[in-house]
């Protein structure tokens, strides 16, 4: 729960950053992906187009090579056909040894000469006569005997098609180590139609391959497919000799329709197929391009993707740093502002981060300062009002007090207690004089005690001296300052409320220094009371004030208003034993006469 809450808080605090960052990342990735893929696709398309064009050229080149070879074969064939010596030797029968000897020499001479036409192609040349004569120019190329060759299917096939130059595929068998493509032609006496031999031009597939091998690669295959759909040559060794009629059909289609190329699926792979018909061979030259493989070689998709990824990462990193910086200062500002209430609006926010954040913080701080000023003014006004109230209260000397005192004096004069009456009048005069002067002024302890003594004197004169009042004043406190009439309400309280049951007792007033404070204690041994609730707010027994409007509550309030919250009044009382009142004040001595009467402001 706690963790979830914490996570939620973190998310909320960073929501601006998360939103911004996510949007940026998504945009960067999207843009990079789009650019990457569109450029790969564009270049692939472009490449495949040029590739098909250049491959078509290559096919034409290859076709030329094949035609050159075919031309050489045709030329050699024509020469053999038109060669009288060869015809003579191949048709002669029942010759003597010597004649045979000469014939063999002659035919060899002729054939060796004709052979030069095809020699450069590394093709072999074999002349087979019906009279058991076999002339094999390059025996090691195809070590074959007369009987074998004469009865070989390719010879039969050729003899059955006497007027055509045929290209036949010979798979690798025990007697031809390698697959061969054999050009064959029947040697026929034109006038009589008599077949006197067969001419063979076997070329090893490996040799034929050289016509096109230079144009091929693993993903760019070239193969020669005969009319039966058999692959007779190809740059992929394992394909040679396989039957692929579907390939032949496709090649035929491409060639017949004159297509540039066709996308096909053969041998389980997608290819771009180009084809060219070789009429002299009756074979199709097929070019298969494995698109994917070619493109994979050409365009290093991985590298491009890596570069894109690198760019994305760097951009994301930069975006992270920048947006983090921007949102961080704002988030911090928001956090500071949201916790502002806890600090009474008097702690300014830190002006850090980016320009915008600084400006906002700055504006906020100015606003805060102004607000603070207004608050101060409001508090001051309130205080002034309160002190005016207090002053007003202080000035309200109870008329009954004066009336009763004057009545007492009248009785004293009637009784002839002249001196006593004089003292009482003196005391009343002094008391009124001090009480009615400015309420804000402080007076020395000495004066205050004098006032209190006068008050006590008046009271004792009026009510008798059953209640004794003792003053214990520490001499070093005499010149200390304290607000006027601060102790009077407590003595009045003691006189009129503490001794309702007991008729006799005493009230002791102590004034002394304690540390930096001035401590005044008013202790009586009267009835005591039960303290309920907050006595500082409400008087325990709110009675009519007998002397002035200032009650005990007001005393506490006044002290706190003047000196601060650490000062004030403390009352402790035990029922039947008495009450103890402690008044704590700051120790202020008259050092400078000019400021002596000013109450310090807090």
């Amino acid at each position, binding site marked *: 729960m706690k963790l979830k809450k914490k996570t939620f808080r973190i998310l909320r605090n960073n929501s601006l950053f998360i939103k911004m960052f996510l949007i940026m990342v998504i945009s960067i990735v999207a843009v990079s992906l789009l650019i990457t893929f569109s450029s790969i696709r564009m270049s692939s398309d472009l490449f495949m187009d040029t590739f098909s064009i250049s491959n078509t050229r290559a096919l034409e080149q290859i076709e030329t090579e094949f035609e050159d070879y075919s031309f050489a074969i045709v030329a050699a064939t024509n020469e053999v056909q038109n060669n009288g010596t060869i015809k003579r030797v191949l048709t002669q029968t029942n010759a003597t040894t010597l004649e*045979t000897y000469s014939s063999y020499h002659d035919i060899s001479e002729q054939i060796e000469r004709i052979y030069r036409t095809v020699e450069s192609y590394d093709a072999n040349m074999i002349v087979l006569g019906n009279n058991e004569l076999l002339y094999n120019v390059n025996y090691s190329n195809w070590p*074959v005997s007369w009987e074998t060759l004469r009865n070989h299917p390719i010879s039969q096939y050729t003899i059955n098609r006497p007027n055509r130059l045929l290209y036949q595929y010979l798979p690798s068998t025990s007697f031809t180590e390698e697959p061969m493509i054999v050009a064959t032609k029947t040697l026929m006496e034109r006038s009589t139609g008599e077949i006197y031999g067969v001419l063979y031009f076997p070329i090893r597939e490996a040799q034929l391959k050289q016509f096109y091998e230079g144009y091929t690669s693993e993903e760019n295959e070239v193969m020669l497919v005969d009319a039966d759909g058999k692959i007779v040559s190809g740059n992929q060794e394992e394909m040679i000799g396989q039957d692929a009629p579907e390939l032949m059909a496709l090649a035929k289609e491409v060639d017949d329709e004159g297509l540039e190329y066709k996308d096909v699926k053969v041998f389980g792979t997608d290819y771009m197929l180009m084809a060219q018909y070789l009429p002299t061979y009756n074979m199709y030259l097929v070019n298969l391009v494995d698109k994917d493989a070619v493109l994979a070689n050409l*365009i290093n998709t991985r590298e491009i993707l890596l570069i894109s990824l690198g760019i994305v990462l760097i951009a994301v990193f930069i975006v992270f740093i920048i947006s983090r910086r921007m949102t961080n200062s704002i988030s911090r500002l928001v956090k500071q502002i949201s916790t502002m209430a806890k600090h009474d609006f008097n702690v300014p926010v830190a002006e850090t981060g980016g320009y915008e954040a600084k400006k906002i913080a700055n504006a906020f701080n100015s606003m805060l300062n102004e607000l603070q000023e207004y608050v101060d003014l409001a508090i001051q006004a309130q205080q002034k009002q309160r002190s005016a109230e207090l002053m007003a209260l202080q000035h309200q000397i109870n008329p009954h007090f004066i009336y009763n005192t004057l009545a007492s004096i009248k009785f004293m004069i009637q009784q002839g207690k002249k001196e006593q009456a004089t003292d009482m009048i003196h005391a009343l005069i002094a008391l009124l004089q001090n009480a009615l002067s400015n309420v804000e002024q402080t007076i020395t302890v000495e004066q205050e005690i004098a006032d209190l003594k006068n008050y006590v004197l008046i009271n004792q004169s009026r009510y008798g001296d059953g209640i004794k009042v003792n003053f214990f004043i520490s001499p070093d406190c005499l010149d200390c300052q304290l607000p006027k009439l601060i102790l009077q309400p407590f003595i009045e309280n003691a006189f009129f409320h503490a001794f309702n049951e007991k008729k006799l007792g005493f009230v002791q007033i102590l004034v002394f220094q304690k540390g930096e404070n001035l401590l005044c204690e008013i202790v009586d041994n009267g009835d005591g009371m039960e303290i309920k609730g907050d006595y500082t707010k409400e008087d325990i027994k709110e009675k009519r004030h007998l002397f002035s409007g200032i009650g005990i509550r007001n005393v506490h309030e006044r002290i706190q208003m003047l000196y601060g919250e650490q000062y004030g009044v403390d009352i402790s009382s035990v029922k039947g034993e008495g009450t103890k009142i402690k008044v704590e004040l700051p120790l202020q001595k008259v050092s400078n006469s000019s400021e002596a009467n000013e109450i310090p402001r807090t």
Partner: protein
Amino acid sequence: MKKFNLMFLAAASMATLAACSSGDEEASGGSGSEGSADVDEITAWAWDPAFNIAALENAKEAYNGDGDYEVNVIENAQDDIIQKLNTGLSSGTTNGMPNIVLIEDYRAQSFLQAYPDAFHPLTDVINSDDFADYKIATTSYDGEQYGLPFDSGVAALYVRTDYLEEAGYSVEDVTDITWQEYIEIGKDVKEATGKNMLTLDPNDLAQVRMMIQTNGSWYVEEDGSTPNIAGNETLEAGFETYKEMMDADIAKIVSDWSQFVGAFNSGDVASVPTGNWITPSVKQAADQSGNWAVVPMPRLDMEGAVNASNLGGSSWYVLNVDGKEQAADFLLNTFGSNPDLYQTLVEDIGALGTYSPAAEGDAYAVEDEFFGGQQLITDLSTWTDEIPAVNYGLHTYAIEDILVTGMQDYLNGAELDTVLESVQGQAEAQLK
């Protein structure tokens, strides 16, 4: 591809990343290290997978020296080897040349004389006395031994004992005979069995070559380049003998190898006078086992002629390129001094070497049931030592091409002297 990448990078305006794509260009290049003489791979060229290539592979296994290098055996057609050597050596470049190359003895001199500096002499490497004399003559030049003799081309007469018997002859009757005696026997055999005595190929004068070497003569003089045709009595005798064979009508005319092999495999001829390398072909006709014997080659009826000759054969040569020390070391520790290797060669591929110490090995003494229990290898090895040494010179095949035509004329009735003089004239005109 590179261009594309750069385009893409530019488009992405991330020029800083360009470095990572263009770094791989330096990896290639700087390949040529031709300055160093010490190499860890040497190359050998030969042409026949069943014969000399196989021999090289055997040699690699048999190598007992302490050199540390790889031997890379490459198969090339013999014509290709000749062409590549000629092209390479004449242009003076050693690039792409092998360290070891096999050259047919008839052609060896043409290379040694044309490019004497291109070959690394083995005079101090091998002991010439260990090899058949006639081989040394063809593989050395100007007093230096260049070739390490490989297979023996010792010629022999393979005879059908059953046909001879039918005509009333025994193996002894055809042993150490002259060609004239051979022709007489041939006539009787043809009369008795109807079979020809031998095959002749009008385009290959191997018979003549074997004949004249029995008397230590060749198409060229001792210097190896001057045609020795006109007035060469041995050659005249050879031609005459050849014509006698034609006249006696004991020869079956063949035009190529298949007919040549076919003739004796099918039992059409009673004898095969040729190089010992024909043994495997003869043995192909397993049904004729026990009906064959091998006897020394007939000699010309002349003073000094011996019953021993040669046909073909080849030798190893070290080219003067980096790695020649390793190549010489390889040859010395295999074909040059390892009798056991020759036993293996005889047993595994039927290749008869010309290294004399090898003749004492067990493999040489094996009795061959096909040839009626004859110790064929021992016999061939013995005859090898008797072959008269001749300098095959530079132009064996060139002269023979002219001689083939000359033989036609001679057989058709021209005067021998005229024919030979004509050939001499043509040869001099063509070769000088």
